[in-house]
């Protein structure tokens, strides 16, 4: 009905947080990491960049999901935009769906992103450990 609105709200919060973190990071120089075997020196990904991964997943996912809602006639281009919002009984059902399906969607995407961040941090730590041994 309108479950995609919960990830949209999270995406907006993440976008603002990403901007804020990026501005803070500008002052700091990011560490460089030597990528084993490739002879490449890479920059350690800044946290704002990692936040952008989450932002891309949330914005992209909710945009495509919103299209699905348009497809099924649940979202319309005129006020109140959500067909369920015009009927109180349907509106209650819509809010229930947002609280269950919508929140679960946001949580699952965030957990997947946390997994990505954990793997990325592990790779960074390994690369940093290998750095003094090479020099």
């Amino acid at each position: 009905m309108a479950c995609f609105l919960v990830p949209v709200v999270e995406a907006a919060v993440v976008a603002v947080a990403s901007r804020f973190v990026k501005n803070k990071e500008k002052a700091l120089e990011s560490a460089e990491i030597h990528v084993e075997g490739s002879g490449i020196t890479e920059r350690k990904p800044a946290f704002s960049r990692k936040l952008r991964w989450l932002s891309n997943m949330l914005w992209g996912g909710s945009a495509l999901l919103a299209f699905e809602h348009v497809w099924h006639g649940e979202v319309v281009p005129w006020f109140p935009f959500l067909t369920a919002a015009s009927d109180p009984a349907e509106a209650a059902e819509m809010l229930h769906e947002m609280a269950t399906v919508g929140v679960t969607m946001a949580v699952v995407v965030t957990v997947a992103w946390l997994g990505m961040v954990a793997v990325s941090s592990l790779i960074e730590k390994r690369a940093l450990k290998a750095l003094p041994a090479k020099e």
Partner: protein
Amino acid sequence: MTLLVTVFAAVICTVLWYKNAPKSELMLGTLSLMYWGASLMWLVDAVFEYAELKAEYFAPAPADMLNDLFLGLSVVALGLVIWLVILLIKDPKGAVKAVVFSRKKQ
């Protein structure tokens, strides 16, 4: 079916991104993250639907399946259009800028 089509799109984009990494001239990472985000959201939707319908969930009517396939393909096309717009605006290769400036010089 929509979930399946989106997952396939996400996997193909991730493989293409990996093949071109660490270069990101085509911003395939953004496209694959978009598809993965949508896939995860549809997975949650599918789980909730399965909890409601049980085994019936796996036996959709042919007309519904066709509609879902059509929707899935449309979603993939929309994702590609969004990605293309982002690519042309951000222009990581500088191709759009180069075309604009070379025309101005003439």
